[in-house]
């Protein structure tokens, strides 16, 4: 992630020349480079402490609840981060989660948990990747605006989900639910933390791939990336396909969490995933951001209702605080604009 923020010199916060050591380009300190990302983690830790102090005991059960509450959003945020890094946006993530959830609930069979759920998982990942691939082709080769393309495909995927599961229902085998959301290691560690760890490893490996460098390059400057020999269109198709794939994974985790199917349930994740990515410090203009920040962003959004619940604050305030924290976080990140001397840079 450190490379991420250096490859994209933000025009706003960039150091004026001359302050560097012996005229060499001075690398800004780690804290400055990752200010927004660290802010997200600070907010999360602060909220976690507030929650922790209210608890009588922090048992594995509480750990499991907290870990599970943000997992779907973290997985969905993985894909959204990648797409936002290219400077695009994916509004079809929520409906894709609904769609994979609906499909999994159709295939899931408590009589044959292993066979049915492995089939369901394969189908869900395939559908997710295909949905994302279609988005990518439309955006990259159709040369259409991502926001409106994914709005349209969101409507289509949501419609298919409704056709597959018109009414909420279906039974997910308990074994599957426990596999993803239960505890292990003598009932001490939440299983979803393994999923989280796997995602972090996947991200750090992904950061080393050429594809990832290309994604940052495309997001920083499409024209410059093109001139440097990056196949911009193919990079975008990959980004959206990965986003669809992670939406499929998020749908699988969501299915384990709710143990049932609902063709509308996933829709809230669309905007929450964007909020998580933005809270995590990524720029919607593309080219800067990291999944590590998105994790904090997602858990901030997920922990707010729990904290409010423990402090006896009406749950009506939940959305209010989510919105407020999102706006406060982006405003803090934007304060640099006020210091900019060159008025052209403000536009």
């Amino acid at each position, binding site marked *: 992630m450190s490379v991420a923020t250096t490859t994209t010199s933000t025009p706003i916060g960039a150091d004026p020349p001359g302050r560097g050591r012996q005229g060499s380009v001075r690398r800004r300190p780690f804290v400055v480079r990752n200010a927004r990302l660290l802010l997200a983690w600070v907010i999360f830790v602060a909220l976690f402490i507030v929650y922790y102090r209210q608890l009588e005991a922090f048992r594995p059960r509480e750990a499991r609840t907290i870990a599970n509450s943000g997992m779907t959003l973290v997985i969905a945020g993985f894909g959204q981060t990648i797409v936002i890094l290219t400077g695009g946006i994916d509004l079809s993530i929520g409906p894709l989660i609904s769609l994979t959830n609906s499909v999994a609930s159709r295939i899931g069979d408590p009589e044959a948990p292993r066979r049915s759920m492995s089939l369901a998982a394969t189908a869900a990942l395939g559908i997710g990747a295909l949905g994302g691939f279609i988005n990518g082709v439309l955006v990259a080769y159709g040369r259409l605006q991502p926001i409106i393309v994914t709005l349209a495909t969101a409507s289509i995927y949501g419609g298919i989900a409704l056709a597959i599961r018109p009414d909420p229902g279906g039974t997910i085998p308990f074994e599957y639910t426990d596999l993803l959301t239960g505890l292990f290691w003598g009932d001490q560690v939440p299983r979803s933390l393994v999923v989280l760890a796997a995602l972090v490893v996947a991200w750090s490996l992904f950061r080393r791939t050429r594809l990832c460098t290309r994604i940052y390059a495309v997001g920083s400057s499409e024209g410059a990336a*093109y001139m440097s020999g990056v196949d911009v269109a193919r990079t975008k198709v990959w980004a959206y396909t990965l986003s669809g794939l992670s939406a499929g994974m998020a749908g699988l985790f969501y299915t384990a969490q709710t143990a049932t199917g609902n063709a509308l349930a996933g829709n809230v994740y669309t905007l929450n995933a964007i909020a998580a990515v933005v809270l995590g410090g990524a720029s919607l203009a593309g080219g800067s951001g990291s999944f590590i920040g998105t994790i904090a962003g997602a858990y901030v959004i997920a922990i707010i209702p729990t904290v409010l619940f423990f402090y006896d604050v009406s749950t009506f305030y939940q959305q209010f605080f989510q919105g407020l924290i999102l706006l406060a976080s982006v405003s803090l990140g934007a304060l640099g604009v006020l210091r900019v001397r060159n008025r052209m840079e403000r536009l």
Partner: protein
Amino acid sequence: MSGAGTIPARPQDPGPDTGPDPRSGEGVPGGARGWLGQNRPLVIAYGLILVLVVAAGILSPGFVSPANLRQQLVLASFLGTIAAGQTIVVLTGGIDLSVAWNLNFAAILLTQLGGSGDGAGRLAYATVAALLAATATGVVNGLGIAYLRIPPLVMTLGMNAVLLGLTLVYTNGSPQGRAPGFARELAIGRLAGIPYALMLWAVLGTVVIVILRRSVFGRRLYAVGNNPRAAYLSGVPVRGVLVIAYAACGLCAGLTGILLTGYSSQSYLGMGDSYVLPSVAAVVIGGTSILGGSGGYTGTIAGAITVVLLQNTLSIVDIGQAGRSIIYGLVILAMLFVYGRGGRVRE
């Protein structure tokens, strides 16, 4: 599409030499094309209405009765009012996702403050409060977007969450009061066979079109949408224009809130949610570029009618929510391909 016969040949694709300027319509240099060539999006949008009406008439002859068509227009006027604000914002290159709860909050202010009585003073106070609150929300959106450079998507998303929370807290989860008589009359009343809602839409439409085409502010909107820096260098107060644009969008949302309250004779939670994406769809189908700087309200009117007709034509063939959603998405995609393609990346 069967309307394709009336449309002249595709305007020449801007080759790599002429630079990427894919947008048709006003402002294209060397526009020696005829009226049809310049207004291709308009022709297509209004042609689509014709196709939909004919299709609906074949499927269900009762649909094209004057009474039903008038009813469709009234429904379109609600969407058209909210889409008027959305058009103004999209022309600057932005988007407003906060209209959902902005209009909901306004509607609830109207019924809660207005009470069930019909005292003129109290009603005037409630109406002014509702419209002022909606405009103030727009101003806050505009300030965040113009002065803090928060991306419109994030700013309005955050405001939407904040307003949702405020509404829940204010109403304690269950809105009180009924729609005042004048709001009911405005939404469902008629004078000499012409619904008041349509008259209001005609007035609003005229005002918006005149402002966009004939006023300094209108020209500035297009300038900001085309290139904020160029606009700034030409003396356009870019940030002021943005704030006014979002304030106008808020006002339109508030107006829609009053109309919808009158139409359903009460306010309820979530009444605006189903209007956000259709309002964006109406703008896009009407030929306004989501990137800003080209388009206008004449197209959005056609877009609003198209969206409403599409929804209701699909409901008469009893295709179900799922099929409607799928076709809706496909139509938006098709419209994008007809006139929404971007230029190739070359530099």
